[in-house]
Each structure stands twice: as C-alpha cells, then as structure tokens.
C-alpha cells in the first residue's frame, strides 16, 4: 500500500502512462493473427492477390490450391506437390503453395527444407494470417519440433 504522501508523485507517472497508452493505441487495435490452419482445412481463406493481374487466371490458381489443401489433409503428398508446382509455374507469388510444401517437409522431418520453403513464402506473402502461419513454421522448425 503506497503511503498517501507519496501518491502525488505518482500523478505525473499515471498521466504519462495514460497519454502514451492513448497515443500508441489511437484507432489501431492490434490484430492477433488467426490460426489459419483451421481456416485452410475448411477452405474459407480469402485468396488475396494484390499484385496479380486479376484477369490472368487467379481462379485456376484458387482451384489448384483447393486441390492441394484437400490432398494434404488426406496425406497425399504427391498430389500436394503436383498442385503446388503447377501453381508456382503460373503464379510464383502464391505464398500458400510454399506453405503446403513447407508443411510436407515438416511431416517428412525435413526441417531445413521446411524452414527454407516458409522463408520463400514469406518473401511473397500478402495475407497477414498466412504470414503468421509461415513464421510459425519457421519458428517451430528452428526448434526442431512439429
């Protein structure tokens, strides 16, 4: 319990804390990344392709990623690789393709490759949730765990 006579010294500190809290939080709620793993499983990820020319066929890319996701969850890694490679040939800035390749590498205990794939995905990722997920893979592969 702080003695009352010292309380007045705390007023400027309290005021400063309040002010810095206001300034740093003005209008910007820090968004916690959503666990994208569940979203990907249910195919409800918004496919964001800002730098891609919209009329050049993102539908094809989206379809390939849907197939890749489905293949991953039935552990059909051969087809995951196929769909990811197809996507990267057409749209190399598709972070999700690197994400699935990284996940396969994790499942195969090739943590070095998983880290590298995730790093590559991070060079092109746009979606903040995907970014967080790629960073999570980087972290867990550095620690050598799943």
């Amino acid at each position, binding site marked *: 319990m702080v003695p009352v006579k010292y309380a007045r010294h705390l007023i400027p500190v309290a005021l400063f804390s309040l002010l810095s809290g206001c300034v*740093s939080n003005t209008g910007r709620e820090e968004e916690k990344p959503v666990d994208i793993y569940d979203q990907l499983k249910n195919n409800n990820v918004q496919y964001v392709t800002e730098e891609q020319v919209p009329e050049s066929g993102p539908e094809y890319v989206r379809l390939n990623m849907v197939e890749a996701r489905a293949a991953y969850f039935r552990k059909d890694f051969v087809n995951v690789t196929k769909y990811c*490679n197809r996507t990267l*040939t057409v749209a*190399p800035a598709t972070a999700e393709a690197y994400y699935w390749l990284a996940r396969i590498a994790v499942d195969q205990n090739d943590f070095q490759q998983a880290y590298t794939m995730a790093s590559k995905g991070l*060079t092109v990722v746009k979606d903040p949730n995907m970014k967080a997920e790629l960073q999570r893979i980087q972290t867990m592969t550095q620690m050598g765990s799943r």
Partner: protein
Amino acid sequence: MARFFSFLRSVFLRLALLALVVLVFAAFYMDAWLIEKLNAKQWTVPATVYARPLEVYAGQVLSQEAVVNELKAAGYRSMMGRQAGTFTVAGNTLTVHLRPFRFWDGLQPAQSVSLTFAGDRITAVRSSRGRAADVRLEPMEIGRIHTETQEDRLLVRLQDVPQHLVDALIITEDRYFYSHHGVSPRAIVRALFVNTREGKVVEGASTLTQQLIKNFFLESSRSYSRKLMEILLAVLLEIHVDKKAILGAYINEVFVLQDGAKAIHGFGLASQYLFGLPVSSLSVEQGALLIAMLKGPSYYNPLRFPERALERRNLVLKLMAREGRLGAREAEIAMSKPLGLLDRKEMLASYPAYLDVVRRQLRRDYSDESLRLDGLRIFSNMDPQWQWRSQRELQQGIMQLESRYAAKASGIDGAVVAVDHATGNLLAVVGGKASRHSGFNRALDAKRPIGSLVKPAIYLAALGGGYTLSSQISDAEFSMKTHNGTWRPQNFDRQYHGDVPLYLALAKSYNVAAVRLGMTLGIGQVSKTLGRLGVEEALPQLPSLLLGAVELSPMQVAQAYSTIANAGFYTPLKSIREITDGKGRVLKRYPLRLEQRFSPDVIYLLDFALQQVIREGTGSAVREQFRPGVRPAGKTGTTNDQRDSWFAGYDANKSVVVWLGQDDNRPLPVTGGSGALPVWAGVIAGNTAIEGRANVPDNVRMIWIDRHSGLLSAEGCPDAMLIPYTAGTEPTESVACATTSHKVMNWFEKWFQ
C-alpha cells in the same frame, strides 16, 4: 553285281543313319540355343522424352495459334469428326479430341476438350469428362534416347492391331501362315514355279516365322548354311510358341523404314511416324501402305517415292479384295484415297541441345543399359513455346546482325537458356543458330569469359557488407602493379566519372568502379559470392576476375542469375520432372528443393540496381518493349575486344541468358547491349505468366534521395529518386530541397517504430 549294289545300299543306309543322327543332335543343340535366345531376348526400346504437358485453364494468356502449333507438334491433325488425335477450329473455338495418355501421375482418358478464345486469352475450357480444371494436352515427344543399334520401336500388342492389317500381312507375306509349321513347302513350290516362269526371283518363299528368325536371331548374310539354320529354327520355333506369339513378335520386329540414322521397326512406331496415329486407329488403306512397304522399305518409302508406294498399296488392297478380306466397294473407296501421310514439317523439329541436357542429367542417375532396354518415359520441363521463341529470336537476331554487318558478322553463333527461376525448371535450351541439328552445344559447352556479367556478384558482396545503393563509389583512374606489368582498367567510353552512387556504377557498368570496389572487398569475397550464387567452377583469384575474366557456359550463368532472380534462393536447374518405366510406374521424381543463400533484403537492393540497368543503364534500349507493370532486370556483358556479347536478365518468374560470339573467338561488331540484349528482350517479353515479384522485405524502406549525391531528398525535389535501404542504413544528411514536413514525418516515424 548284286553284291556291289548290296554294298552300295549298305553304305547308303549307314550314311543316311549317320546324317539322321547328326541332324537329330543338331536339332537338339539348336533347340537349346533357341530356347536360351528366346528367354534372353529383349527388344531394345529407347527412352522417350516428352515436353511439358500444356495445362489449359480459363483466363490463361495463350493464343489459339500457339495451342494449334503444340497440337500439331504432338501429331494431332486438323480434321472433321471426333477421332482421337484430331482437332477442329470453328471461329474462336478450338475443339480437341484428346488421345488417352499416361502421365506420370496416371492415365488421362480420351476426352473432347473445347477451348474458347478472346484475342490471346482462353476464356473458357470445357471437357467432356467434366473436370475442366484438370485438363492437360498431350505433351509432344521431343526425342528419343537410342540404343547403339539406332533401332527405334513402339511396342504394341497383337490385340491392338486392327484385323485388316493382320489380314493384309498374311495375304501378302505368308498366305499359308496358319497351316504350315514354320516352313511352307507349298510356298516353296509355288515360288519355284513362278520364278522359273519369270526367269528371275520375283516371289519369295520365306514364311513370317522364317523372317522373324532371320531378323531376330540370325545375321543377314546370304548363304545356304544360314538358310538351312533358318528353316530348322523356324520349325523349332513353331514347336515352342503359338501362331499368335509369332505374329505379335513379328509386328514389333519387322523393319519398316529408315529415318536418317534411325531404323524404324514395328508397326507401332511406323504408324505414329507416318500417320501420327496409334496402330489401333489405322484405316484399311493406311494399314495396306505399311504392308506394301515391307517388300522394299527403301524402294517403297512413301516419303520419297509416293507414287510407287501408292501403286503398291493399291495392289495390296486388290489382293485383299480378291481373297475376300475386303469388299469390292470398300477396296475401291480405299484405293481412291491419298496416302494420308502426316505433314512432317511440324514433327521434324528436333531439340538436340535440350535432349543433350536431359541425357546428361540421366547419366547421373541411370546406367546406359537401363536407358536402352527399359523403354523409359521421361517427362521433361521443356516448354515448347519458350523453346520455339528462343530458337526464333536467336536465329532472327543473328540474321539481322549478318545483314547489317556483312563480313564482320559472318560466323556469329549463339546460345539461349530460359529458366523458370521459381521452380528451377529449364524451359528452353538452344545450343546454336542451327538449332535443329546436333553438334556443338554452346549452351552447355561454350565456356566463354563473362565480362561484366560478373559485376552483380561484386555489388552483391558490397551490399551484404554494409554498402548501400547510394554509397559513393570512386570511378577515378586506377592502376595497379601485377606480375605482368601495370594493369590499368578502362571504362567502355574511355572516360572516368569520379564518385558515383553504387546503383549507377552497376547500371552503367563502369569497369573502374567495379574493380576499385572489388579490390576493397577482396577478390576472395567476390569469388565466394559467385560460389554462393551457384557457380561451381574454380575461379581465378586475380584482379581480372573483377572484370569477368572467368569462363562460364550460358547454363552456368543461368544458374547464377536464377539465384538472384529467385530472391536469393538457390535451386538447381533441372530438365526432367519425372521418369516412369514403360508401364507407367514412377521411377524418379525431381522435386523442388530450395536453399536460401542470401538474405532477401540484400537481394532486393541488388534487384533494384539491376532494374536500373534496363531503366537507365546499358540495357535501356529495350525498356519500351515491356508492358506496364513488368519490371525486367538484368546485366549486359561485353568482353575484351568485343569477342563475347552477353545478356542475362529476368522478370518476375523467368530468367533468360543469351550469348553471342564466334566459335573461333574473332571480335564481334556488337556489344552485349547491341547484340545479345535485343534477342533477350524478344524471348522474355513473350512471358505470359502471372506477375508477382517478391514483397519489399520487412526491414527495407523506400527513401527519397538525391540521385547524384546520395543525400536525403524528398518527393518533388529535382533529381530525387526512390531507393530501397535496409533499416538503419538510410542517409541522415539531406539536400537543401528536403522539406520541413518530410523531416517531421521522419522524426514521428522513428518514435513509433
């Protein structure tokens, strides 16, 4: 007298008995020999190499003409109807009737696919099988890796051969096939009679079994003993195998025609070669033509002697009608049809340089024996659109130089390597201007000094060692003592430019600045950077390395520049994606593997500088050829006395390297910018993949600076330009023009980082 005849009779009987015993022993011996040969015999089936399959989808940038060209190259024909292996064009709709094809991941069944185009884009894809998202056009065959005997065949089963073809074969070559036991006495007597009447050999008596024995097991010499062996072995063969097996072996063994050095054996390949069709799809007259050729493959070669071949074909059809195997009307219709050969212009294209790369990659993983006997199916990464464009641009580029510079340009040759740097897939390899002919593969084997192509390695080492794009580099006169005397590097324009910002020294390819910087960093550091880029070659640890006195092939340069283009991630270039055996089982895959060799922020800075080469540097001549939004980057390379003209560059997902030079090392009348650069631009400007460059790395900021002094500036100030900096390396001093508001914004940003 009686005793004499008795004596003769006794001798004769003993001799006959002896001969019989010898014959029996010989028969047993040859039977054993035959069984051993039958068990050991394997057909030599070469490995087949395919290009990448064309995957089609709505929204794809691809013209109808490009698709048709690929279909023709894969042996598809333009014709009405729904026969597999054909296509039709109706306005902006292309309908393809795909043949079934076994890819590395399974069989794609026959189906009809309809593609709708609007300009240079596919707007809709419909498949008769429903899954339009998964449609791949059959890949074209780009070559075969042959045996020493140069035999080529496509194995087929007897049940795949149409009955009319079998009928024509029996009627023409061995009408008593089903009734004799290897040798046909009737055929012998008939042949004797006909040949005696004609006074020359016009009819043979060899059965199909005898022909098979001769081709399969014996040499082709003509002697009585060989003939005797042939007869004996034919009888023995018929004891061991049934008629169907003999027929099945025959249709795969028979020599049909010669294609240069290659001998085409079997109806399977002959059918593909002449008609672009599987043997099961042959019509009566097409089958009759194959049979017609057997009597004399050279004499009746339809490609060289079409009239002769047509006449002989019609004779076969008449024979079939006479023997009741064909109706009279049917025969008449068949005889009225032309030969119907495939237009071989599209199929004659050969890709020796690319095949060479495939062979070398295979040699690492397979013995020559496996390649010969297993009938491997090799699915390569060659992209026909890129390959054709690379060949065309190289040839046209060289032709233009020859017509502009006449004698000075005679003998110029070149090479092109195109890569999908995100995956490491080799899309195109051109080894020379005569790209269809095998010979010296300049893309792989022409190791030439790379000149200024080495400079990105110097600047990359600098950027990774604390330099920024605006660091002032001295381009003042420089000399140093070497064991050969004094070395005084010169700029191309023979001038010195004082202090210049780093990015500009690279964009303008100033030699002196590069040497000064390289010497400061250390040759070892530059050499190490080249190694990290993927150059696996012993490098001379001499100052001349800094001006590119190191010999590399275009392929090696492509590997290095792909690492830069791929945001600092190295992936080995590969020509093969999958290998399967003849039954479709996957034997080997070549998956994507990456190695991060440089940090993204350093590469981002280098990439910016290489973009400046095109924007304002030695590559600016082609700046306008690129559509808005595309940010090409690259480096020119010109060696001493202009003996080599290089350009290595990339866009968001493809890298291309072009080299021009003379095999005898004579000087060229062009530099990298005036020779290789236009060829490069022609190749890469056709890239239709979706753009998508790497993001600005998290710790890189775009800052306005003064382009001459490298000091802080602001938007709107004269000579201001936006340049990336890694955090903490931004300039702190400003030019006078930098506004107060800019300074305040910087201050605020620093507080809230």
